Every structure is written in C-alpha cells, then in structure tokens.
C-alpha cells in the first residue's frame, strides 16, 4: 500500500531582499521588481516529507502550489530535490484570494488526489506571515493538525511523532494519520537539488490545474470567496532619509513619540 504525502508550497517575493524600487509611488507593491523564492519554511516542509520518504520507500511526495504560471519554478525545484510530482493551481478565478479562499482551493485540489496520508507545509509564508493556510486546509479536510513542527521523531503507516515548538518550550506529540503538519524555520534545511534528477527531469512540464478541475464552488474562490478586504495600504519602508536631529526638549520628544504612535510604530 502506498503512502501519499502532499507538500503545500508557495512562491513568494523575497521580502528579505527588498530594493529601493520594490514599492510603487502609490504605495503598492511592485512585484515585477522583486526576486521570487521558494518560501523558506515550505522548503523545510519538503525536507521533512523527503525524510519520511527516506524511511518509507513506497511513499510519494506531491508538491501543490497556487499562483501564476511562473510558480512552476518551485515545482521543478522541488522535483530536483526529490519530490515525485507536483502541480500549480493557476487560474484568474483564484486571484485575490485571502487565506480562507486559498485554503478552500488547496483543500479541493487535495481532495482530487484520493487518499492522502500526510500533508506538510511551512508554518507561514514570508510575504504574508499569517500562518493561517495550514490550519485552515486541515479544518476543511476535517483532519487534525500539528503546527510549529521542528523535528520528525518517528513515522509509521498509522501515526507520526513530532517535536513542536511552544511559546516557552517544546512538546512531543503523536498524531494519528492523516494529519496536516506545519513546519517552522528551526527544522532541518532542505537537501540540495540532485544533478542527475535535474538532467533527467529538465524536459518534464509542470501540470497546470484550473478552477474547473477541483470540483469547487466558484463563489468560494479568489476575491469573491475572501471575507477580508484590504481597506488601505501605507508604505512604511523608507530609504534612510536625512537624519532628523532633535534637541532633548519636552516639545520635541513629545512630538516624536506622538508621530511614532500615529505611524503604528509604538
């Protein structure tokens, strides 16, 4: 009996290397100017999936992502590192999705795969930092979740044992399968792409899946299926301006603290 693992991944703008042209003058994000990367914690989730596969030779790892067609890059990368398969949920009807609509689309896509034993994903993506999609996919599939996983301790056909991070410590939990696990940055780094795989797989296309193929209610997808709306965006990243020099007077300090409170910094 085969053991099926799904890894949820996202291609994200590299928010840790934001250049001066990253923001448009109207305060919106200039995505074209940002390099993209495999979301770091999703790579850690992939590594955990590959560790399971190392121990269970009949296991398969399928990487699922949602995004524009170029997100196929991370599927290729994941295959080169050892994933068996993967696809991109790509459709204009998915666009503008918040975490609720995203988790709905992903969970519907996973349902199409039949029996899945283990779902892994990064705790959060560096462009949104919400950590919501994992638990929401678990809820939609009506399976338990283990968040903040740091280390895979044991795996068998029925259960997984994991060490997870708490606010002030760690705990070891044993979860019955199927379960969804989100992985933090403290987990093991992902293995490198394998040269043989790169050559062998270089010609293999990445499957694109659209909204018609996942048996979805259309009004639960994309912007329409998203209860959260962005009311306003303020750009706060500023190239260092001239330093303002203040004398330590009551008036100056009061104004500074008022400004910082108003800008939501304090």
């Amino acid at each position, binding site marked *: 009996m085969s053991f099926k693992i799904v890894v949820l991944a996202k291609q994200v*703008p590299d*928010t*840790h290397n*934001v250049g001066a042209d990253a*923001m448009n003058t109207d*305060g919106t994000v200039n995505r074209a100017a940002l390099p993209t990367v495999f979301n770091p914690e999703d790579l850690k989730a992939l590594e955990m999936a590959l560790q399971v596969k190392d121990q269970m030779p009949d296991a398969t790892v399928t990487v699922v992502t949602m995004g524009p067609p170029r997100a196929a890059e991370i599927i290729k990368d994941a295959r080169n590192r050892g994933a068996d398969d993967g696809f991109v949920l790509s459709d204009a009807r998915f666009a503008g999705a918040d*975490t*609720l609509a995203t*988790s709905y689309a992903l969970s519907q896509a996973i349902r199409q795969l039949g029996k899945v034993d283990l779902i892994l994903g990064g705790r959060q993506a*560096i462009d*949104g*930092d*919400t*950590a*919501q*999609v994992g*638990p*929401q996919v678990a*809820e*939609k599939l009506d399976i*338990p*979740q*283990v*968040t*903040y996983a740091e280390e895979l301790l044991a795996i068998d056909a029925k259960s997984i044992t994991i060490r997870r*991070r*708490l*606010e*002030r*410590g*760690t*705990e070891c*939990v*044993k*979860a*019955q399968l199927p*379960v969804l696990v989100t992985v933090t940055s403290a987990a093991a780094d992902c293995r490198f792409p394998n040269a043989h795989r790169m050559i062998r797989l270089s010609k293999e296309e990445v499957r694109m899946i659209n909204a018609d193929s996942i048996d979805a209610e259309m009004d639960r997808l994309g912007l329409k299926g998203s*209860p*959260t*709306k*962005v*009311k*306003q965006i303020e*750009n*706060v*990243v500023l190239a260092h*301006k001239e*330093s*303002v*020099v203040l*004398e*330590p007077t*009551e008036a100056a*300090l*009061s104004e*500074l*603290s008022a400004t910082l*409170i108003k800008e939501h*910094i*304090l």
Partner: protein
Amino acid sequence: MNNVLVYCELSEKNQIADIALELCTKGRQLASRLGCRLQAAVLGSGVKAAAESLYPYGVDEVFLADDPRLSPYRTLPHSDVLSKLIQKEQPQIVLFGASSVGRDLAPRIASFLRCGLTADCTQLEIGSHEDPKTKKTYENILYQIRPAFGGNIIATIVCPETRPQMATVREGVMKKEVFDPAYKGVIVPVAVEASLAKADQAVEILSREIEEQKIDIKGAQIIVAGGYGMGSRENFQLLHQFARLIGASVGATRAAVDAGFCEGERQIGQTGVTVRPKLYIACGISGAVQHRAGMEQSAKIISINTDPDAPINAIADYTIVGDVMTVIPQFMACYKNNLK
C-alpha cells in the same frame, strides 16, 4: 446582542496569560465604543479562580469550560468547544493572542465559521467602511491594522460582510491595564461533554519540556538597545523600564555585554544576533560597524547620544543629542502623556 469575545489562553502556571489580559484591555475599549458587552472564554482544567481574575479588566461574562481534557492546550478539543460557543453566542468580534496557541486555533475556527481573520494586528480600531465598488457603507467595522510584506507596508484590513470579525495580536503590542478593580462580571459555565467525544483522540501529547524563559530578542518588533555609554549596570536597568513601557525587548552592544551591563544573549551585531525590528532605539551606542551590521536593517532607528557625531547617527532617522539618563525618562513621560 453581538458582543466582543476574547479567547483567554493560560500560562504554564494555569493563570490567565498576559496576552489575554492585554486583549481584554483592548476588548473593553472596543466594547465600550460599540456599546456592547465584553466576554471572555477560558478553556482549561481547574481554572475557575483564573477566570474570575478577569473581572477587573472589564469583562462582563466569562465562559468557562473546565475539563481535564482541555489542559494542556490541544487544537481539536479547544477548537471544538470554542467553535460551538461562537456559533451560539454570535459575537461580532473575536480576539486571540498571536501566540503558538492563538495562531494554531484561530485559523481553524475561522475556516469552520467561514469568516475573515487577520493575523498579528498591531492596532484595532472601530470605524466605517465604504465598499469602493458597491458604494455601500458599513458602520462600526473593526479596522484590523497590521504590518505586511515583511514589515514593509502597513495594511488596514476589514471584513464588512462576515461575522465574527476575528484578529490575532502579538504579546506586548497592546497595553494591559485594569479597567476597574471593583468591576463584577459573571461566570457562565460551558458544557463540554458531548463536543469532546470525537476530537479527543487524534493527537496525543507524549511529553512537554518547558524551558525557563530564555532571552530571545530576534523576533522583537521594538528593541531598546544600550551601549557602553549607558555607563553602568545600574543605569542599564532604565532600559528595562523603558522597554516594559513601550512593549520592547532589550538589546546591547558587545561593549555593554563585555562591561557586564547585561546578559550575553542580548548582544546584537556581527558576533551577536541580527535583528530587524520596526523600531530600534540606540541608547548610548556609538555605532561600531560590527554593531551596525546586526541592526542597520531596522525599519526605523532612533539614536540617543551625547555625541552629535557618533557614527550611529548617520543611519538614524532621528538623533536626540543628550544624556540617556535624562532623555529616556523625559521620553517615557511624553509617551505616557500621548497615550492618554
């Protein structure tokens, strides 16, 4: 009546966690603004006294689910009980801590209720919202304000159509303040027997290791850092007071650590940790390149230094020329005034 509900997580000692008290303080303001009641949910085992300790924070009703299976926290038992409670009570707003518990629980519940959830809010306000397309106006909407995109933008999120409006807030972002020491609320017991049957089995906690609270400044949103210019270990204590007031963590330069002003875990720089908070307040720090390497990506930098030509001032957004021991207390007083 649609009220404001706070999910109150518990500390390891089975007390109400600070984050929950901070949320109740904010929840009280929101409830008063909306003219509704403030409710709290406490789920745990042997926590009646902890539940009652919430009254001074202006809590009108505490929903208390007291059951051994609810402690320590596990996702499914808590999400099961809380989801049902929310369905029954129909609050208009539900707040959670952006902790490993709140960030595990809130999204699961939002998915179940199919409502919106905004993570890691730094500010919550009430206001109106006009839909740009339909021109429909919504009154008394929760503005969920949060940094996004690696802290490079501040977004205001609203959920005009769905209820409840849910948000998580990080510890230390909101102030914890007693509303009225004599305030009296009531305990409303929540029955858990039926709802836990299925949820109980899936995940088992084998062992837990609780560490002494370690110093960890890497994830701090605001850092107050001291250098050799602080002068002494005693003077350095002022930074801890300052940090407590504004919800910051305390960092230090290598020179300050070597001089014994504070613990080595607080060292920022090439041989310490690298930080990128939204605000870095450098106190008595000259700004050696090794230190700057660990903090120059802070979104905003304030330098307080007697030397107007200190190298750190070149990368500071604001430079306050003066003695830290006078400027910091002054600034603290101004900040307290401005909060009023």
